[in-house]
């Protein structure tokens, strides 16, 4: 864990951070399983799209460590998660059921959002996971409002975790939300998943600074830069920031530097704007095999267990795929429901 702005992105690849003493072996295995699940679900989304079974998917390959680590710091039943559209892994790590991800991918009637939004736009109030739109940074103020509500009600040991990409930091609403959170020292953790690309726009065309985290100083909050390929570093930073927030210490801006291995979505072809070499140079630090090696080297899991875990994750994803695909679409009449409570009285 390093203070802004000194740290670099995850290169040269350090060993996984050593400050994992808080995490039990079970937790470390859970983080790893979460990373495997995220990658497998990601791949499945692209596969289903290429099979013509779903019209759209957004992957998060390269974000696994950030999301699995942050998910481990999230306190289920207490914390609120206000995510963005590349957070399927984080949502699952915070308690969002895998099968429901597939309801969303297939836009089935059982999707919490009724098949209305794009895949990856999840919602599950009972798990503290907020509904959000595709409007970049539109959710920032919601997270801040929710944090205000927690503080307003004097709710101890609760915090909001709000995530976004580095592109969102260019939005005016991002600034407004950060400003308000800093002003009122709200119980919130801002986690920037800096994958260096906003669709085709690289970070250097997005901002004049190298590190998002330094922006924190303008809002009177601490900024932290971490290796987003290291789940333990992410866990440490998010857990510490969450603890600070939940105990009245105010917000923190964490910048987790990672990389987007896939195209923006299934509708995007990244070969038009970035080189294969660039992608490959990051691939060598791919967080999933790296963490796998670390776990084996440190005796947390055996190679046999790793293979068993991978098989189990694939089985789960296969089962969820088949089960969700077998579910029906929403009825066309569902278009007209849940606009407002009761009936909306249009002109018809």
């Amino acid at each position, binding site marked *: 864990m390093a203070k802004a702005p000194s740290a670099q992105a995850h290169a040269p690849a350090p060993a996984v951070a050593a400050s994992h003493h808080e995490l039990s072996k079970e937790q470390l295995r859970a983080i790893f399983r979460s990373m495997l699940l995220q990658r497998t679900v990601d791949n499945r989304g692209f596969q289903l799209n290429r099979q013509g079974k779903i019209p759209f998917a957004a992957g998060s390959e390269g974000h696994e460590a950030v999301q699995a680590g942050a998910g481990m710091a999230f306190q289920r039943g207490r914390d609120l998660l206000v995510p963005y559209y590349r957070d399927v892994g984080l949502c699952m790590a915070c308690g969002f059921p895998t099968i429901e991800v597939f309801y969303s991918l297939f836009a089935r009637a059982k999707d*919490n959002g009724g098949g209305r939004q794009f895949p990856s736009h999840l919602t599950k109030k009972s798990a503290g996971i907020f*509904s959000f739109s595709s*409007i970049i940074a539109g959710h920032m103020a919601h997270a801040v409002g929710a944090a*205000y509500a927690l503080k307003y009600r004097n709710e101890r040991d609760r915090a909001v975790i709000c995530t976004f990409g580095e592109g969102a930091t260019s939005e005016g609403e991002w600034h407004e939300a950060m400003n308000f959170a800093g002003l009122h020292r709200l119980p919130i953790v801002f986690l920037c998943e800096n994958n260096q690309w906003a669709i085709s726009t690289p970070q250097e065309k997005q901002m004049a600074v190298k590190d998002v985290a330094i922006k924190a100083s303008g809002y009177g909050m601490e900024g932290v830069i971490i290796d987003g390929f290291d789940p333990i570093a992410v866990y440490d930073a998010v857990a510490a920031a969450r603890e600070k927030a939940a105990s009245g210490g105010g917000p923190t801006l964490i910048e987790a530097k990672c990389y987007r291995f896939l195209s923006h979505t299934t509708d995007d072809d990244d070969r038009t704007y970035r080189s294969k070499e660039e992608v490959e140079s990051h691939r060598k630090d791919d967080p999933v095999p790296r963490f796998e090696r670390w776990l084996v080297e440190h005796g947390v899991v055996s190679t046999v267990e790793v293979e068993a875990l991978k098989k189990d994750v694939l089985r789960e994803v296969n089962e969820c795929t088949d089960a969700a695909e077998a579910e029906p679409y929403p009825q066309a009449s569902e278009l007209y429901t849940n606009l407002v*409570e009761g009936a909306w009285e249009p002109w018809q």
Partner: protein
Amino acid sequence: MAVTTGTNVMNNVEAVRATLYEALKNDPRTLVMGEDVGPRGNVFLITKGFLDEFGPQRVLDTPLAEASIVGIAVGMAMEGLRPIAEIQFSDFIFPAFNQIVGEAAKTRYRSNGDFTCPLVIRTPYGGGVRGSLSHSISVEALFYHVPGLKIVAPSTPADMKGLLNAAIDDPDPVLYLEHKKTYRLIKGEVPDGHYTIPIGKAAVRKEGHQLTVVSYGLNVHQALEAANQLEADEALKVEVIDLRSIRPMDKQTILASVRKTRKLLIIHEDNKFGGIGAEISAMVAEEALFDLDAPIHRLCGPDVPPMGYALPLEEEFMISTERMKQRMREMVKF
């Protein structure tokens, strides 16, 4: 559901203030937020004294940032509070357009009911107060296209209270428009106690059988004055409907009246093109064409951005009562 013990005469500012006060008193989930609502008590003194009584957490002076005033209120509402956000002047609402249209109005829909957004956005609108280009405009037409967003524009103190209570009680977002010129101009009796006026219900302010006038806000009072004069001086019987709610709109009351009078005049201060009158005209043409005995007319603000600061520029924009009378007379006699 009115629990009334009597009435008080109030102007519109006092009615809004009294209603907000009662809401803060009665429901700990409610809070008011906006620019200068704290020690200043809002620029029209609507929240005057609230800070001392309810404290800075519930009378929240926000940074000068309209998008987040609404956006933060949306988050509060999604997390169980009942925020009453204020945009200081409706002219300043546009930075919050995304939060109102893209977020608040879609929260319930996009989550299929998983989340709701019980939010009130209050904002003063309208001209005739020497407010010039950026303190005079009407914004209702820019929002009434949006399904899921309720819009009310009460004109009388009693309606101010009843509809504000309804908006606060409503489980979905409501844009609550207060015409600035009526703030202190219009006085009326306001029943005591908590009562609501259903959103989506118009009021027939004056009955008549020769012409239906549909209006809202300040223009309702002028239309009533014009109609009363025409009745007293020329025995013309004009029916005046106060829309009160712009969306959902009370189609039944409008159609029933038009089917009776066979003539429809819509009056609003907002620009004519694409205004509220356009939708009412289309609706009546669709539903009641064969009951019409005259072309539908709209008496509206001209299609220039807003009114100017100079008095003649403002007066040219605003619709005078005399102009209303003239148009009503023409239509009755048509």
